[in-house]
């Protein structure tokens, strides 16, 4: 069931296994790790995120190592498998330090050329360098790539830079210094104050101020209190939590311990999707090595603070992202939400005071403690401080994971960083916030992105998924797609969500099948409002957002489906019809032979005709026709 990946375990050998009992000893480990880094003249970083691993990056590492060994360079050059670089579109990525050379779409068999060319002869492998999409010029240094220029990495600071399986590399990058600072120089209330002053808001979707959440949780006393990390990333198209856990698991472990200190909790739990085997392995490994170093467990860093973390597996239910549902699932029950109050801070996991934050939220904490609230506040906008990680996907050139300061515009994200729309097509909409969010259009492109602006535009930040759509996407069909998702994922506990999403989906299906009527638009709007007002949890309350936002922004497209019985984007099958152009058809019979339903008639060298009543609209004929004689509309 859950896979274990042995290469990660092999690489996790600690240099020094004795417990770290003081801040001085922590600094000694750091100094040793820095020294080790200095001795390696060259470091080759290979992306080991899920995307690049699927494209064989394990084998790239193996080949590079073998090639280095045969050149007797193994002691001078280190090969590391890191977390995600973010530039998934061009994966697998190989980056060479110190000169930051960025190789894209590397194949295992390219290892020899990289070692021979770049390392031995000092000549960059031109063919593998990233090419600027506008100028076509090679850009050897990733700092100059448009994809990275506007990014600012805080939560992803170590992703694609350190080997997540080696705790010393995290310590080298100031890892666990924030925890040491809290334990030795700060009182719990000071930690909470810094978090409050920093303006950090929950990155899981709702944007609740993190410091305030911690403060409330700190007020309740009990024999056991819990710190929970929500790693149940269920939003389709968002993969930042997975990437953080794969690329820098210690940042989450450290932050959970800091939170434990701040709210006086001794137990931590990570609730993670069972579908993320690699993230699970790396997190388990991180917890294990932190325990070996005494950075988790009893009397951390020689103080009287004790804290440990366990992992709980989810089993695939979107609603478990909602914190009360998540807690019920952790208790081994159906993940159904309950009304708040009581909030988890008062009565959470098995009725004990519990603080729940999301992975990305935790990933920011250590940096805020080390660099201060003012530093964090200086980034982003007034009400949404800091950065946000977005997963760019869909019909965009540079699919990947990016971290940008709040307040950046959608235009900058989609066109500068994302490189614009695929195949030179026209931008139509971007869906933010996944199934809970809405579609934003051309007119919203210059809106600065932050929590409040997105809500004002009828969408939301959500966990940070950003799906870009072009002119070939049909908006009623997109709304239908999201409702299929929410209907399926509705837990069924409250009627507005269970019945309401089903009814919304039925109406949208009628519209997409050409059976819609104008009165259905009012029904969609009214029903949406009722669901928003009355559903029990966030899933139901936000489920109508994709319907309402597309209905407002693309009203004409909905009308075309209902009145003209046409799908302008050519997506809704039941509204399509295929035609053969008499002037272009040569009578080659290929289309007739291709048609799976024998719906095309015609003799050799005579114009062919599609019989509408038999046509199943599969489009096979259009794909096969060599003369471009078949069109759909």
């Amino acid at each position, binding site marked *: 069931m859950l896979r274990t990946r042995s290469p990660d375990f092999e690489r996790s050998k600690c240099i020094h296994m004795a417990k770290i009992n003081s801040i001085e000893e922590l600094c000694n480990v750091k100094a040793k790790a820095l020294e080790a880094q200095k001795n390696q003249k060259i470091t080759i970083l290979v992306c080991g995120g899920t*995307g690049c691993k699927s494209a064989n990056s394990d084998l790239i590492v193996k080949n590079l190592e073998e090639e280095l060994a045969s050149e007797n360079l193994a002691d001078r050059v280190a090969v590391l498998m890191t977390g995600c670089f973010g530039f998934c579109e061009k994966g697998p990525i190989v980056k060479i330090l110190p000169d930051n050379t960025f190789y894209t779409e590397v194949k295992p068999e390219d290892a020899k050329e990289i070692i021979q060319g770049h390392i031995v002869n000092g000549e960059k492998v031109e063919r593998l360098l990233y090419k600027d999409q506008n100028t076509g010029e090679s850009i050897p240094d990733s700092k100059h790539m448009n994809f990275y220029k506007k990014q600012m990495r805080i939560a992803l600071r170590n992703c694609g830079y350190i080997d997540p399986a080696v705790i010393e590399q995290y310590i080298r990058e100031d890892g666990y210094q924030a925890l040491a600072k809290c334990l030795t120089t700060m009182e719990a209330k000071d930690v909470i104050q810094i978090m409050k002053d920093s303006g950090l808001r929950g990155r899981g979707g709702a944007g609740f101020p993190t410091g305030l959440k911690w403060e409330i949780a700190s007020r309740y006393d009990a024999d056991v209190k819990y710190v929970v990390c929500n790693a149940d990333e269920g939003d*389709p*198209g968002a993969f930042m939590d997975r990437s953080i856990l794969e690329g820098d698991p210690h940042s989450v472990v450290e932050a959970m311990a800091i939170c434990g200190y701040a709210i006086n909790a001794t137990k931590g739990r990570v609730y993670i999707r069972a579908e993320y085997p690699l993230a699970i392995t790396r997190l388990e490994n991180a917890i294990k090595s932190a325990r070996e170093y005494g950075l988790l467990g009893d009397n951390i860093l020689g103080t009287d603070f004790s804290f440990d973390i366990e992992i709980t597996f989810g089993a695939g239910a979107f609603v478990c992202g909602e914190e009360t549902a998540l807690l019920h699932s952790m*208790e081994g029950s*159906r993940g159904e939400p309950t009304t708040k109050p009581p909030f988890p801070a008062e009565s959470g996991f098995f009725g004990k005071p519990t603080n729940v934050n999301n992975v990305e939220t935790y990933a920011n904490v250590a940096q805020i403690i080390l660099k201060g609230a003012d530093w964090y506040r200086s980034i982003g906008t007034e009400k949404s401080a800091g950065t946000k990680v977005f997963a760019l996907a869909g019909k965009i050139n540079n699919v990947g994971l990016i971290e940008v300061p709040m307040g950046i515009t959608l235009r900058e994200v989609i066109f500068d960083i994302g490189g614009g729309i695929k195949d030179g097509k026209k931008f139509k909409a971007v869906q933010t916030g996944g199934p809970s969010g809405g579609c934003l259009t051309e007119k919203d492109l210059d809106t600065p992105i932050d929590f409040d602006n997105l809500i004002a535009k009828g969408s939301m930040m959500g966990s940070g998924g950003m799906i870009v759509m072009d002119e070939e996407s049909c908006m009623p069909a997109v709304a239908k797609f999201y409702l299929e998702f929410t209907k399926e994922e509705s837990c069924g506990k409250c009627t507005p969500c269970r019945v309401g999403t089903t009814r919304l989906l039925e109406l949208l299906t009628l519209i997409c099948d050409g059976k819609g009527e104008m009165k259905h638009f009012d029904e969609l709007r009214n029903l949406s409002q009722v669901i928003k007002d009355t559903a029990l949890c966030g899933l139901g309350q936000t489920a109508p957002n994709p319907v309402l936002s597309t209905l407002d922004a693309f009203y004409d497209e909905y009308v075309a489906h209902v009145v003209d019985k046409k799908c302008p984007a050519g997506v809704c099958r039941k509204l399509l019809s295929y035609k053969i152009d008499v002037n272009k058809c040569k009578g080659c019979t290929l289309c007739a032979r291709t048609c799976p339903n024998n719906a095309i008639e015609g003799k050799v060298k005579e114009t062919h005709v599609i019989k509408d009543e038999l046509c199943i609209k599969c489009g096979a004929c259009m794909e096969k026709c060599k003369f471009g004689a078949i069109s759909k509309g």
Partner: protein
Amino acid sequence: MAIDSLSKEKFEELGAYIDSLPSKKGELIRVLHRAQGIFGYLPKEVQFFVARKMDVPTSKVYGVVTFYSYFSMIPKGEYNISVCLGTACYVRGAEPVLDEFKKQLGISCNETTADGKFSLNALRCVGACGLAPVVMVGDEVYGRVTKDMVKDILASCLSHN
């Protein structure tokens, strides 16, 4: 097949695992993960067994099994094919790929072919959106899948034998 997959040894293994837990409180989902790992699926015999051992009503076990998409009450095929229908894959054409699998295998989602070779299901986002549309066969990930590749993917599974 159904009889083989519910052997006494497997029940003993699951029983020993449950007995080894320090506390049964709140561990139902963990136990079901393990049970599915052992049996490959969670038929009613296994659910009854878990309920008795864990000292909870069978209705609660059934409620949890049916609530979560990760748990399956039918045996999976030798090759479990999951087509990602996350948004990123959807807008890059995952639906026609899924339809092609259905057509070629002659089964719908959440079904297993009669010979027990293939099972098919749709899944929501494996997080490899850069490779969209994505298909997983067991642990193996196929990226940028098109309708035309479906035949080859199935053929390569069979050639593993």
